């Protein structure tokens, strides 16, 4: 598998990626694949001829300024938007609409304020017709996974912003998704909370093996939690830069924010964005 169909500039930074659980995954069939996908709205092309694929357990960070089209890509994977050209495929099947195999964590959490934390988390199971006991069991398990044990019966408005995003994560994970889609989920949080949750995402990936598409406009965030970063400069011509993140395992390590490879990558991307 080639990393990107048409990178505008081959840009691989840092030492070669160390052997890690997802290194072998590069050769496994991709979980998510875009084939010459284009999207136009009102006859105006927003993106054209975008191709890439994401392996199982990989975290792909989509980086770029507002309006660059990164959320459009995420919305197409989620099934909220249909490509106007090309095909988007998840797990070998073309995406035709939203589904529990592609859960979304939203920037503003978008929790259901009228439901308790447990009811929010088990929502997908309720929709699938699971019984009360089963829903409670999964809710408690997922709450524990994201560090919310003891808050199952709270209402979302009683939680802090960081905890709300944890609920958002848990309710997506409860559905057992193939791909978790994260749309700038931490951009409204304070720095400490944001960094803790970034580490949480890496930990959850290691625990669940979930593939993640992470949209962000923060270079630090992309460089800390991505396995690969797409810097989306000009989607109207289908061009983007690809960066491989080369950080030592175990990844959920706050010290990685000081790693030379992290600092170098951050500088490279920064210069590229400001060139």
């Amino acid at each position: 598998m080639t990393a990107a169909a048409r990178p505008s500039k081959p840009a691989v930074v840092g030492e070669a990626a160390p052997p890690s659980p997802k290194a072998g995954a590069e050769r496994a069939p991709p979980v998510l694949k875009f084939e010459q996908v284009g999207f136009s709205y009102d006859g105006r092309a927003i993106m054209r001829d975008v191709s890439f694929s994401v392996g199982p357990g990989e975290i792909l960070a989509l980086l770029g300024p507002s309006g660059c089209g990164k959320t459009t890509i995420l919305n197409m994977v989620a099934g909220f938007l249909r490509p106007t050209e090309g095909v988007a495929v998840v797990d070998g099947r073309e995406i035709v609409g939203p589904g529990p195999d592609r859960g979304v964590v939203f920037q503003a959490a978008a929790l259901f304020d009228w439901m308790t934390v447990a009811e929010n988390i088990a929502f997908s199971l309720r929709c699938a017709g699971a019984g009360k006991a089963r829903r409670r069991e999964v809710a408690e398990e997922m709450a524990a996974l994201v560090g919310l044990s003891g808050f199952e019966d709270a209402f979302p408005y009683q939680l802090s912003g960081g905890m709300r995003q944890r609920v958002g994560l848990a309710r997506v994970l409860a559905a057992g998704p193939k791909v978790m889609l994260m749309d700038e989920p931490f951009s409204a949080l304070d720095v400490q909370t944001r960094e803790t949750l970034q580490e949480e995402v890496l930990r959850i990936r290691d625990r669940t093996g979930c593939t993640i598409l992470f949209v962000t406009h923060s270079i630090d965030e992309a460089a800390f939690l991505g396995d690969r970063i797409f810097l989306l400069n000009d989607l109207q011509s289908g061009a983007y830069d690809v960066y491989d993140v080369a950080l030592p395992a175990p990844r959920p390590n706050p010290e990685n924010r000081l790693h030379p490879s992290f600092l170098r990558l951050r500088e490279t991307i920064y210069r590229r964005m400001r060139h």
Partner: protein
Amino acid sequence: MTRSEARRARLRYVLVATLSPLAILALWALVAWRGLASPIILPPPSAIWTSFLDMAANGYSGVPLWTHVAASLARVSVAYVAGAALGVALGLLRGRSALIDAVLLAPSELLRPIPPLGLIPLFILWFGVGETSKVLLIFLSVLLIMMVNAQAGVRAASLDSLRAAQSMGANRWQVFRFVVLPSALPQIMTGLRVAMGTALTILVASELLGGDRGLGFLILDASSFFRTTYVFAGVALIGLIGLATDRGLAWAGRRIVHWEGRR
């Protein structure tokens, strides 16, 4: 705000809310006592209280006071419950289906600005002067108010929460049941309070249609005989019913839509 500060603020609110009508009553008593207004136009509160006690003991125009109250409450509750149920259902349907909205748009928006009083002659022609006309008049007003509020409530569901539900596997019905309906509830609860106020207003008007019982009948009958103190007593009773139902609905609303204003 600490818990005790919050409790003190709440206490102050209740105190002021109780004192303000008492102050108005005192001012009123003062005006009447100083002879600044004719007792026919503005009788003193004490005279109204006497008339109320008289009615409570001896009834009004041969009918016990509680029968008047019960007759009015029965009309209002039947019309209110039926009107709210159908209005909410139609409003939700209009909010969810462009076709149903298109069908109902002109009929309901043509009806809405017509004052219910203007419909009274028609209702007399169609349904006579009995209970049917009275109840239908209130029913129609409540229905139109609740339809508007429920439809507006449907739009309160955020795009993200709808998408979140869909991406967790919710079908159309589940999206409606678990997201659209709860999102609409705050607006529906507000509508219920507005509609209750209107229902009580229309009640008095509907009892213009005739009959020999009901608070509206009592007020109109007393006023045609210049029994001003009885008019005031009847008006006060309707006001108190309005106050009680509004507080009850507001209390219920705070419990049902507990998340409102706390996001």
